[in-house]
């Protein structure tokens, strides 16, 4: 705290009148905080210990929040113990006061509202105090009148800018060093938000399913040298149907389906609606009930914000995503936000991610880029940014035409810049055709007539496809059919598929 509770709470000069206060709101917010940690997070945003009129309430608030910020339990027992250690238990009225507070709070979900009421009453008490001090300056006479007016203005301005938010300052000698708890070693940290970004069609969602599948059976992921305890995942998918795409892909990846969950939506007074950022507190509670879940995937995160925000505005994006960041920290869950890359050409990967550099990327501690390199269309996941450790080597993966996903392993040659350089090309007609053709031929040689017909359906002329064919160094083979005249059908294939070409 920056000042003592008693200093902050001191009564104004005209102390014969009882300063305005609301004890019901004070007990309600404290009770909610003792019932659920979600209420503490909500209250911390709007009220501070020195906002409470009753000193005992300020002490309880300070004790609960200090435990919470240290990541410790905040129930009646721990708070009682902490108050006893600080010699404040008798001051606040004993442990039974805490049980009464918890039992009588009207609604934990309204903690922020109760907190705001407490903070508003604190402000009007400060207004009364400032008014008294200004009155005293007036009674002192007109000496230094300009200075007095300036001070009076500053005192009133300070009231407007102040209020809420207790500063918690620790000296580093008291701060214990912490190791990063990795869900996927070096790439996806627990307790933080990771971004997985890439152009459409590179397999971002499939990678997330494969990741969930690997975790569900306790498999070592690429780049790791040991298996793990089976870990659960929760998929918040706005684009892929749970019963069709996701279930099929999970099965194809060999997932233990008991360990992978799907968030269908949120039931409210109207019906089932999509998950929104302000539902994070419900999700946090759900994760507390499901300690096996170590990964939450939001795919794509843009849908989470759709219709609510201008994603190019930093403050709005941060405000919307902060609940997820807080949830990840409090539950020690890895949150992966899947994101489409923006179409603007930019040199640095991190400047391309999301609508707002400070919004999306600034909140993420790790940013993974998914893409395909230009020459052979190899797919890879590369590290574009990591705030909590060195960037890890890229990992190559394959998605074949039959819809099977396979990790191919570490691929040092497929860095973020390499993938990005290929990605830039996708935003021209030829680039898009190159990407499409790489995808179409990925599983092996295809009849040229079939490629042309499919390309036509995607809006690519034969001339564009032929230029894309040259661009990627594709090859063709033509064979006559026994018993028929002519040269026979022609097949197109990628440079590394010669062995698969029809003989």
């Amino acid at each position: 705290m920056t000042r003592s509770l008693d200093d902050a709470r001191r009564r104004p000069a005209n102390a014969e009148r009882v300063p305005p206060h609301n004890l019901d709101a004070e007990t309600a917010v404290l009770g909610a905080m003792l019932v659920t940690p979600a209420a503490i997070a909500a209250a911390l945003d709007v009220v501070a210990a020195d906002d409470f009129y009753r000193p005992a309430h300020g002490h309880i608030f300070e004790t609960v929040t200090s435990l919470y910020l240290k990541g410790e339990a905040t129930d009646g027992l721990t708070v009682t113990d902490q108050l006893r250690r600080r010699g404040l238990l008798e001051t606040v009225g004993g442990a039974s006061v805490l049980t009464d507070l918890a039992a009588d709070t009207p609604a934990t979900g309204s903690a922020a509202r109760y907190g705001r009421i407490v903070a508003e009453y604190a402000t009007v008490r400060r207004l009364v105090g400032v008014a008294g001090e200004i009155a005293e300056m007036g009674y002192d006479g007109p000496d230094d009148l300009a200075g007095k007016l300036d001070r009076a203005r500053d005192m009133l301005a300070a009231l407007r800018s102040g209020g809420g938010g207790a500063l918690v300052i620790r000296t580093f000698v008291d701060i214990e060093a912490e190791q990063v708890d990795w869900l996927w070693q070096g790439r996806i940290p627990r307790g933080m938000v990771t971004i997985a970004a890439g152009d459409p069609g590179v397999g971002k969602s499939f990678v997330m399913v494969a990741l969930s599948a690997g975790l569900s059976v306790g498999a070592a992921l690429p780049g790791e040298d040991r298996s793990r305890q089976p870990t659960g995942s929760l998929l918040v998918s706005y684009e892929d149907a749970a019963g069709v795409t996701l279930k099929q892909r999970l099965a194809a990846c060999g997932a233990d389906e008991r360990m992978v969950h799907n968030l269908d939506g949120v039931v409210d007074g109207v019906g089932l609606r999509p998950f929104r950022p302000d539902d994070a507190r419900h999700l946090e509670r759900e994760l507390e009930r499901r300690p096996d879940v170590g990964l939450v995937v939001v795919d794509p995160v843009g849908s989470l914000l759709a219709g609510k925000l201008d994603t190019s505005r930093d403050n709005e994006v941060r405000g919307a995503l902060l609940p997820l960041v807080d949830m990840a920290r409090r539950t020690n869950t890895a949150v992966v936000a899947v994101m489409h890359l923006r179409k603007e050409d930019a040199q640095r990967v991190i400047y391309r991610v999301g609508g707002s550099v400070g919004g999306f990327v600034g909140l993420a501690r790790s940013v993974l880029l998914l893409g395909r390199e230009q020459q052979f269309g190899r797919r890879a996941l590369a590290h574009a940014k990591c705030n909590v450790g060195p960037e890890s080597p890229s990992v190559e993966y394959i998605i074949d035409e039959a819809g099977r996903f396979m990790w191919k392993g570490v691929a040092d040659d497929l860095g973020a810049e390499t993938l990005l350089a290929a990605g830039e090309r996708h935003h021209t007609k030829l680039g898009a055709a190159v990407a499409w053709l790489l995808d179409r031929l990925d599983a092996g040689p295809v009849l040229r007539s079939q490629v042309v017909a499919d390309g036509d359906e995607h809006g690519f002329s034969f001339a564009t496809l032929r230029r894309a064919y040259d661009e990627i160094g594709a090859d063709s083979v033509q064979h006559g059919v026994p018993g028929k005249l002519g040269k026979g059908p022609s097949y197109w294939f990628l440079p590394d598929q010669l062995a698969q070409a029809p003989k």
Partner: protein
Amino acid sequence: MATLQPEDSTDRSAALDEVACRLEAAARMLAYVLIFDDFVDLETAASAAIRLIERAQHFVRLAAA
């Protein structure tokens, strides 16, 4: 505390959250009083737990409405 009642009593999900966290708090309170001698006495804990459960019942009714 009429002015401090929930703002949105039609939010079923929020009401169920209220139920869950209160039942959990009541159970925890009773468990603590049985395990730790220096916590509150049994009568105080039981009284608080009953009020938590009564409050939870209120939210059950809201959720069902």
